[in-house]
């Protein structure tokens, strides 16, 4: 079955929102596109927007392939997607407040308790501590796919430290430089206010003890981290300091940064470090990235961490399967965004089915991310399937399986000219004291190889600019 193409209908005509773009692409000679692609690469190099791939020694600074052909949503489509995102992230926050609070949802038996308590990202230390305004996930990246022109499916929720927003912003800047004529013809909703929205969000969740003019910082593991460019980019756009663990210290349960003018109190930390590495006194003792005593200051209510500690319990792939129930439980509404049908391998019937159908399914680790450690059945060899089956039998709890969705495709510029490639989409959802916000755009990831369904940048995927347009 051919996948749904977001631009071209089966009869060869362009869908309404893509009509102008399609006409432009028809008229654009391929040399023009090649030369713009080279320009784009130069611009990205000059800006320094690079990405490190772990385990690849020669390429500590690699560019993520950028595709020139934008992905377009009509405003109506966007409105529905936005409602669904707001609903979902509100539910995620209520779920976390509950799991670390009254535990109503566990007592009601809607989500099995062991999925929470035995989750490696569950932080018992957080129980009984209230977060400012009940917000745990200040920044969420919800991965969305489409299979037709109606529904949006959530592939996974990223509630820890989702990355990629710098690509949303820089892709737009580069596109505006390279294709002014397209922007002239389209009136694309701007995304440039994302840093302001993020700053407003962070400033709205200051701890009660903060001064009227709170200090926000971005905490990075340092320049060897794969997303370091993004950390520095965001700090610059926000106008806040980019700090490493060694720049901070804790005294009397308060966090300070070392500055040329002496210690300065820090109120909100947008941290891009995993829970495990935040504080060697509380979590991994061998962490040199963190700040000793940070977690104590946090529990004392003297500093806000965004996202909160322990959010990983809601974005794992086992909890994911319960999201429709979670949304109904807290909001009394049906989920606007659909879940991909999922087999929970922890359930014996499901496991048996999955083992029988490995060749058709995608099997993922419950706690994995970045496309590591997954099996894409239709593209796996017999040997790979056999060894994966053994892993599944050993630890079925660690896996879920999903059908290989015919992800939608978008026209993409490749060496053979314009051809269809599979895409997904990660919008960024901000939750603050004053509500939930989504800027009209996000990161479209594209599998650059024909037929491939793996869009992760660590596996060679690329990105596209994403447009929301009227009409």
């Amino acid at each position: 079955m051919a996948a749904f193409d977001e631009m071209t209908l089966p009869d060869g005509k362009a869908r309404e929102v893509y009509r102008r773009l399609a006409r432009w692409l028809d008229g654009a000679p391929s040399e023009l596109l090649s030369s713009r692609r080279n320009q784009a690469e130069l611009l990205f190099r000059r800006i320094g927007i690079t990405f490190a791939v772990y385990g690849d020694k020669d390429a500590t600074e690699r560019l993520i392939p950028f595709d020139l052909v934008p992905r377009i949503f009509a405003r109506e489509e966007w409105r529905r997607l936005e409602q669904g995102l707001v609903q979902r992230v509100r539910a995620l926050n209520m779920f976390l407040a509950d799991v670390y609070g009254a535990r109503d949802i566990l007592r009601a038996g809607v989500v099995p308790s062991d999925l929470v308590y035995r989750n490696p990202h569950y932080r018992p230390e957080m129980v009984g501590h209230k977060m400012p305004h009940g917000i745990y996930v200040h920044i969420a990246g919800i991965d969305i796919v489409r299979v037709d022109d109606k529904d949006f499916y959530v592939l996974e929720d990223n509630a820890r430290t989702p990355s990629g927003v710098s690509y949303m912003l820089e892709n737009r800047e580069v596109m505006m430089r390279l294709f002014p004529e397209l922007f002239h013809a389209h009136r694309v909703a701007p995304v440039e206010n994302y840093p302001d929205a993020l700053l407003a969000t962070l400033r709205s969740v200051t701890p009660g003890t903060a001064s009227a003019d709170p200090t926000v910082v971005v905490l990075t593991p340092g320049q060897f981290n794969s997303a370091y460019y993004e950390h520095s980019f965001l700090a610059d756009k926000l106008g806040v300091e980019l700090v490493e663990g060694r720049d901070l210290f804790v005294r009397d349960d308060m966090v300070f940064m070392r500055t040329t003018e002496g210690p300065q109190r820090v109120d909100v930390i947008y941290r891009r470090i995993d829970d495990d590495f935040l504080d060697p006194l509380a979590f991994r003792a061998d962490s040199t990235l963190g700040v000793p005593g940070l977690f104590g200051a946090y529990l004392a209510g003297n500093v806000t961490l965004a996202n909160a500690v322990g959010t990983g319990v809601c974005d794992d792939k086992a909890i994911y399967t319960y999201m429709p129930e979670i949304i109904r439980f807290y909001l009394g509404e049906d989920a606007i965004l659909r879940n991909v049908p999922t087999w929970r391998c922890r359930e014996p019937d499901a496991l048996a089915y999955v083992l029988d159908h490995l060749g058709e399914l995608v099997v993922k680790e419950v706690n994995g991310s970045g496309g590591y450690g997954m099996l894409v059945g239709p593209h796996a060899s017999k040997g790979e399937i056999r060894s994966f089956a053994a892993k599944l039998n050993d630890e079925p709890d660690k896996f879920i399986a999903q059908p290989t969705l015919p992800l939608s495709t978008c026209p993409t510029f490749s060496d053979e000219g314009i051809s269809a490639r599979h895409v997904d989409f990660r919008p960024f959802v901000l939750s603050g004291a004053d509500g939930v916000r989504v800027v009209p755009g996000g990161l479209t990831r594209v599998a650059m190889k024909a037929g491939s369904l793996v869009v992760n940048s660590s596996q060679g995927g690329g990105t596209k600019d994403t447009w929301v347009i009227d009409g």
Partner: protein
Amino acid sequence: MLSRAADNLFWLARYLERADYIARVIDATQRLSALPRAYGGAGTEWESALESAGVADAFHERNKDAKADEQGVVEFLVFDAGNPSSIRNCIDLARTNARAVRTALTMEMWEGINSAWLELRRFEERRDKDCVTDLEELGRFLSFVKQTSLHFDGSSNRTMLRNDAYWFSRLGLYVERADNTARILDVKYHVLLPETEKIGGSLDYFQWTAILRAVSAHTSYHWVYRQGIQPWLVADLLILRPEMPRSLTSCYENIVRHLDSLGLSHGRQGASQRHARATLGRLENEKIETIFQSGLHEFITAFIHDNTRLGTAIAEQYLT
């Protein structure tokens, strides 16, 4: 040095600064006019661009009855030889002035200006051949203009002796820059006036960022205020903040400094020193709240007038 040579240096710097500013205004206006209508595009962006460049009257005189649309305005601001402030004329005049004082310039400065002028010729030739400049070509041209002023600024800073030649070229740059900043505030003051709209939800948000972009202060804003964009802070940044290199205060600190250097070296002060110091004093004692209370528009109009008078005072004291 010769009054005439000082005059050339003063205007050389003014023209290059103006070319840079007009390029930024066009950039910012293009962004604004490409926004969806729901974001507050009033359809008058190009008229504002003309006003920001101070050439609205000249435009309408030449293009009777014509609406200020993108193509017409860009043509007028960038390539029109009949518009004394068009970018092509600014670069052309800068080179004419530079040639006249060739020996007062360092090699690096002269080569920078001369190659910019040659590049301009190439752009114009290509344009005459194709009869039209597409947006892509325009984008390249505008970034070339910005490179040119960066090069001029950097090379004079790095290579010039600190004497009359340096001081007069700096004076030209800062008098022009103060005029530009004040003008963009004057055109946009109505979107800066306080309103009780919800923070972050204002349709004027993109107008404010356009102002900031036009004076390359978009990132600086966040470093100074560490909060979302507020109209009165945009005004504060561009009028009063000494650390913002395009603010009126910063321009006048520089003007006073360079005029003082001149006075010291000549052993004599005059009307321009007194005038500049008085203006700086007023800026330093001003608060943005007071400016808003007594009228932003009135404040800026008075400033533009004062700044023009400084230009006249410098001309009378030194350049003629």
